[in-house]
C-alpha cells in the first residue's frame, strides 16, 4: 500500500512549474497544501522525485518565507546524487538554507571534497560556490588543500571561483594563509581579465579589514593601476590604494599621478571617475594637483541633471569638507540649490554640507535660510534641519554663537515651527544656556515668557519639553522678569492640565519661586533698615522691577492660591506634594500680608520663613561636567562591592549635630535618609511646619559646599570676566573647584557691536575619552598570518616564478597538507626547500612591515 502510494506520488508529482502556476492563482491554502505534498515526496527514495520536491521547497522558502531548515538532511541526500541536475538543486538548497548551526553540516565535508576534486569543472564550481556561502571553521580547515590545488587550475572558470572562495576560507581559518597566500598573490600578475578581476576583488576586501598587512604588495597593485583598462578592476584597485595611502603618505604621492591621469581621460566611465574623486578626497587630499583636479571634476557632477550624479557629488564633498572646506565653499550655490531638490536624500546631503560650512560669521544667515526651508518642508526633513542647526550651534559649548540673544530667539522660533519634534534637545539647550551664559538670562526669560503665555502651545505634546525648560527658566531667573504676576498667571493657567504631571510639577515649583521672589521683594521694601535705601533706589528705577504694592502682592498670592487649590487633590504625588508645599507656605505668610505694612517687627515667623526660602533659591545653579563623577578620587579603603554595614560610622559624623540621642537602636536607614534630606535642602522639608532657623540652612549649605566643592561652579568668577578682564583669579573663592573653567577671551569684532558673552565651559567634560585603537588588528590571526606570508616576499619571488612550489608548513597544516603533497608530486621536490625558507621568514616576523623600495 505504501509503495503504491509512493508510486502515485512520483507519477503525479507537481513540477516546479505547476507549483508556480498554482501560486499565481492566489489560493490561500495552496502553500500549505503544497508543503504537505513536499514533505511526502521528499522522503521517497526516487532521486528525481526527491530533488524536485527540494526544488519546490527552495522556491517556497526563497519567495514565500517558508522555513526549510527541517529538510537539511534531504538536501545533503540530493547533493550526493550523481546527476548534475540533482546536485545543482541540492547545492542551491544548501547555500540558501544552511547556517553555522545546521547540525548536518558535518555530513557534507566529504561530498564537497569529492566534488572539488571532480573532473567536471561545473561540479567543481558548484562546490566552490557552496563553500563560499556556508564555509565554517571546520570546512575551511578540512578543505584548504583542495582550494589550494584549484587556485592553480588551468581552467579560468574554476580558478576565479577558487579565488573567490579564498576570502571565506581565510576568514574562517587563518592558517590557510600559509598554504594559499602565495598562489593568490601570483594571480595578481595574471593576464586573464577574469582572474584579475576576481583576485583584485578579494584583495580589496582583505585590505579593507587590515590595510597595514598588505603594504608590501603595493608594487603589484601599482602595476595594475597603471596597466589595467578594466573599470571594475580599477575601481577595486583604487579602493585598495585609498586604504593603503591613508596609512603610508609616501604612497599617496606616488599614486596621485596615475589617478590624475585616469581622471583626465575624456572617455572615462562615470563610475571610475567618481572612484578617483572619492579616493583623492578621502586619502590623497594632501596632493594639491590631484585635489584641484578632483574638485573641478566634482563640479560636473553637481550641476548634472542626473539625480544620481548630483547626490554622489554632494556625498563626495562631505568627505572632503572636514579637511578642505574651500572645496565646499566653491560650490556653495549648487549646495543651496540642492536644498530645494525633490529628492529627500539629496536634500539631506546638502543639509550636511551647509552645516559643515557654518561658522560664527554666517551662522545667522544660514540659520535663517534653513528655518525658511524648515517651514516649507515635510515633517521628516523639517526635523532634520532643526536637529542639525541645534547640533551645529551647540558644538563645543556654543563655540560659533556670538549673539546669544539671537540664538535664544531662534530656539523660541523653532518651538513654533509646526512640525517641530526636537523638544528634548531644545529643552536641554535652553536650560544649558541659562546656566552657562549669564548675560543671556534676560533674553531667556523674555523668550520663555512668550512661550508660556501662549495657551495654544500646551496642546502640542512635542513642545512639552520646551515648555518645561521655559517654566524652569522663568522661575529660576524671575528677577529678570518684567511682570512676575504675568508669569505666575501663565504658569497656573487652566490649560496646564494638558501637561504630563512631571512637567506640571516644574510649573508649580516655578510658580513657587516667583511667589518667593515677589513676596521677598515686598518684605524687604518694608524693612525699616533698608527702607531708606529702598526709597532712594525707588527713584532710580529699580522699583520698576521690584515695585510690589500691597494690592499687587495680595492679588498675586490669592491668584496662586486659587490656581493651586484645585490641584491639592491630584492623583499624581509629585504635583500634589508641590501644591501642598506652596499652599502651606502661602498659609504661613498670608496673615502677615493681610496685616498691611503696620507691623514693623521684622522678626515675625513669616519674615524668617521668607528669608529662609530666599536663601534656598538664591544659590545659583551651574552646569555640571558630564565627567564630574569620575573626577572624585576613590578614597582609600573604599570597598564598593561590600555591603554597607560601615555606613553607620560614616553617617554618625554627619548626624552628630542633629541626632544627639546616640541610641544604637536608631535605624541606619532612617539616619541616612534624614541626613540626605538635610544636605540636599529640598524646599519641601523646610517649608513644612518644623522650620529650622535660616542660619542653619546656610551653614549646612556651606558645609555641603565644603565637602563637595568639587561640583560647585563659582558664579562670581564669570562676573570677573564680565568686566572684560581676562585674568582668571580664583582668590575670591574659598573652595576652588576642581574643574577648571576655561573661558574664551572674546575677540572684539568690528562687525558685531557687542562682545560675545562669557560661556561657562567645563574643560574636559565635552570630549569623550577615546581609547587608543592602537594596532589591535595586528594581533588577529589573519593579519599575523599574512604578515608572515609577505615577509621576505622580495627574495622568495624569483623561485616562486620558476617552480610552483607548495608553501606548506607541515606542522600546522597536518593531515590535509600531507594529502596535498601526495597529490602534487611535482611539488615534492621543492617543499623541503620552501619549508626551510618559511622558517627563516618566521624568524623575522617581529620586524615591522615595510613597503619595498622599488615603489618609493
Amino acid at each position: 500500500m505504501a509503495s503504491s502510494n509512493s508510486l502515485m506520488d512520483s507519477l503525479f508529482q507537481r513540477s516546479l512549474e505547476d507549483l508556480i502556476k498554482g501560486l499565481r492563482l492566489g489560493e490561500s491554502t495552496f502553500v500549505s497544501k503544497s508543503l504537505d505534498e513536499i514533505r511526502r515526496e521528499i522522503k521517497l527514495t526516487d532521486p528525481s522525485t526527491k530533488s524536485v520536491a527540494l526544488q519546490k521547497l527552495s522556491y517556497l522558502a526563497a519567495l514565500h518565507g517558508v522555513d526549510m531548515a527541517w529538510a537539511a538532511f534531504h538536501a545533503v541526500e540530493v547533493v550526493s546524487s550523481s546527476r548534475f541536475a540533482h546536485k545543482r538543486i541540492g547545492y542551491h538548497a544548501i547555500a540558501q538554507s544552511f547556517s553555522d548551526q545546521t547540525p548536518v553540516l558535518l555530513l557534507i565535508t566529504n561530498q564537497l571534497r569529492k566534488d572539488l576534486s571532480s573532473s567536471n569543472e561545473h561540479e567543481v564550481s558548484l562546490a566552490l560556490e557552496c563553500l563560499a556561502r556556508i564555509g565554517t571553521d571546520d570546512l575551511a580547515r578540512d578543505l584548504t588543500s583542495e582550494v589550494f590545488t584549484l587556485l592553480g587550475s588551468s581552467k579560468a572558470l574554476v580558478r576565479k571561483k577558487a579565488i573567490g572562495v579564498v576570502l571565506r576560507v581565510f576568514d574562517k581559518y587563518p592558517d590557510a594563509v600559509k598554504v594559499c597566500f602565495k598562489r593568490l598573490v601570483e594571480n595578481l600578475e595574471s593576464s586573464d581579465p577574469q582572474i584579475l578581476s576576481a583576485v583584485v576583488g578579494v584583495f580589496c576586501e582583505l585590505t579593507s579589514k587590515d590595510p597595514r598587512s598588505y603594504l608590501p604588495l603595493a608594487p603589484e597593485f601599482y602595476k595594475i593601476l597603471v596597466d589595467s583598462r578594466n573599470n571594475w578592476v580599477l575601481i577595486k584597485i583604487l579602493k585598495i590604494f585609498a586604504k593603503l595611502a591613508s596609512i603610508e603618505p609616501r604612497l599617496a604621492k606616488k599614486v596621485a599621478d596615475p589617478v590624475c591621469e585616469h581622471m583626465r581621460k575624456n572617455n572615462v566611465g562615470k563610475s571610475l571617475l567618481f572612484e578617483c574623486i572619492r579616493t583623492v578626497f578621502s586619502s590623497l587630499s594632501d596632493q594639491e594637483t590631484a585635489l584641484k583636479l578632483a574638485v573641478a571634476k566634482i563640479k560636473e557632477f553637481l550641476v548634472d541633471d542626473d539625480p544620481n550624479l548630483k547626490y554622489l557629488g554632494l556625498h563626495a564633498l562631505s568627505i572632503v569638507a572636514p579637511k578642505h572646506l574651500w572645496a565646499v565653499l566653491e560650490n556653495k550655490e549648487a549646495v543651496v540649490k540642492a536644498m530645494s531638490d525633490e529628492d529627500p536624500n539629496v536634500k539631506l546631503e546638502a543639509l550636511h554640507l551647509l552645516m559643515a560650512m557654518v561658522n560664527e560669521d554666517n551662522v545667522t544667515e544660514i540659520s535663517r535660510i534653513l528655518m525658511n526651508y524648515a517651514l516649507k518642508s515635510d515633517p521628516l526633513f523639517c526635523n532634520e534641519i532643526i536637529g542639525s542647526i541645534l547640533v551645529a550651534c551647540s558644538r563645543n559649548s556654543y563655540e560659533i554663537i556670538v549673539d546669544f540673544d539671537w540664538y535664544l530667539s531662534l530656539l523660541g522660533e523653532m518651538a513654533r515651527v509646526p512640525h517641530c519634534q526636537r523638544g528634548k534637545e531644545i529643552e536641554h539647550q535652553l536650560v544649558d544656556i541659562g546656566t552657562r551664559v549669564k548675560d543671556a538670562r534676560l533674553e531667556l526669560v523674555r523668550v520663555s515668557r512668550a512661550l508660556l503665555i501662549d495657551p495654544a502651545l500646551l496642546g502640542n505634546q512635542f513642545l512639552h519639553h520646551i515648555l518645561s525648560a521655559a517654566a524652569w527658566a522663568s522661575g529660576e531667573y524671575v528677577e529678570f522678569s518684567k511682570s512676575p504676576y504675568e508669569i505666575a498667571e501663565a504658569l497656573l493657567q487652566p490649560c496646564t492640565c494638558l501637561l504630563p504631571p512631571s512637567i506640571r510639577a516644574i510649573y508649580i515649583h516655578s510658580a513657587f519661586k516667583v511667589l518667593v521672589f515677589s513676596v521677598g521683594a515686598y518684605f524687604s521694601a518694608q524693612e525699616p533698615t533698608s527702607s531708606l535705601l529702598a526709597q532712594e533706589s525707588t527713584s532710580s528705577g529699580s522699583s520698576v522691577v521690584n515695585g510690589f504694592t500691597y494690592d499687587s502682592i495680595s492679588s498675586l498670592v490669592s491668584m496662586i492660591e486659587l490656581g493651586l487649590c484645585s490641584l491639592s487633590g491630584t492623583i499624581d504625588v509629585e504635583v500634589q506634594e508641590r501644591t501642598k508645599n506652596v499652599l502651606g507656605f502661602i498659609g504661613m505668610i498670608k496673615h502677615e500680608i493681610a496685616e498691611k505694612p503696620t507691623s514693623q517687627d521684622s522678626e515675625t515667623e513669616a519674615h524668617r520663613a521668607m528669608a529662609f526660602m530666599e536663601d534656598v533659591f538664591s544659590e545659583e545653579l551651574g552646569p555640571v561636567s558630564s565627567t564630574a563623577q569620575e573626577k572624585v578620587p576613590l578614597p582609600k579603603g573604599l570597598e564598593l562591592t561590600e555591603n554597607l554595614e560601615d555606613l553607620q560610622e560614616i553617617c554618625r559624623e554627619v548626624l552628630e549635630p542633629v541626632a544627639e540621642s546616640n541610641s544604637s537602636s536608631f535605624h541606619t536607614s532612617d539616619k541616612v535618609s534624614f541626613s540626605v534630606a538635610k544636605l540636599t535642602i529640598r524646599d519641601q522639608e523646610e517649608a513644612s511646619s518644623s522650620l529650622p532657623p535660616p542660619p542653619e540652612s546656610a551653614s549646612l549649605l556651606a558645609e555641603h559646599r565644603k565637602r563637595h566643592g568639587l561640583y560647585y561652579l563659582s558664579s562670581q568668577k564669570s562676573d570677573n570676566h564680565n568686566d572684560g578682564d581676562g585674568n582668571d583669579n580664583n582668590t575670591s573663592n574659598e573652595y576652588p573647584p576642581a574643574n577648571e573653567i576655561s573661558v574664551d577671551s572674546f575677540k572684539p569684532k568690528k562687525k558685531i557691536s557687542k562682545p560675545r558673552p562669557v560661556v561657562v565651559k567645563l574643560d574636559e567634560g565635552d570630549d569623550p575619552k577615546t581609547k587608543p585603537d592602537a594596532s589591535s588588528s595586528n594581533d588577529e590571526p589573519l593579519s599575523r598570518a599574512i604578515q608572515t606570508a609577505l615577509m621576505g616576499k622580495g627574495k622568495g619571488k624569483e623561485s616562486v616564478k620558476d617552480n610552483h612550489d607548495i608553501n606548506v608548513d607541515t606542522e600546522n597544516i597536518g593531515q590535509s597538507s600531507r594529502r596535498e603533497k601526495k597529490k602534487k608530486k611535482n611539488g615534492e621536490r621543492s617543499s623541503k626547500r620552501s619549508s626551510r625558507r618559511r622558517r627563516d621568514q618566521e624568524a623575522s616576523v617581529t620586524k615591522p612591515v615595510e613597503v619595498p623600495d622599488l615603489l618609493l
Partner: protein
Amino acid sequence: MGIRFILMVNKQGQTRLAQYYEWLTLEERRALEGEIVRKCLARNDQQCSFVEHRNYKIVYRRYASLFFMVGVDDDENELAILEFIHLLVETMDKHFGNVCELDIMFHLEKAHFMLEEMVMNGCIVETSKANILSPIQLMDKAH
C-alpha cells in the same frame, strides 16, 4: 564583503528573487525586504537611485515592472553597482530575449545560476555576458 544581497521585486512589492551573501534568518530577511521595498517603491523617477538603510546602502533600478535592488557596504561604488544591475539585465535579456517578470518567476534557478557566475562571496567575479551564459547554455543543451 561588497554586495550583501540582491533582490528583484515587482511593482506590487512581491519578491521575485532573493539572493543573500550573508546569513540572515527567515524573519530577518522578511523584515529587511519589507522595509527596503517600502522605502524604494515610494520614490519616483526624478529621485536618485541610492537609499541608505540600516548599515546598508541600497542601490536600485527599475526596469519595466521589476525593481532590482542591491544591498552593498557603505564604501561600495554606487555607479559601479548600477552598471552591475544593468549588466545583469542585459545578460538576462540575451538569454530570455527581452526578459520579463514571468521569465524570472518560471526560471528562477537560471537567474540564480547567472548570479552565481557573476558574484562570489559578495565580490563581482565575472562581467562578460558570454562567460556568464556559457554554463547555462551547456546545461540547456544537455536537457
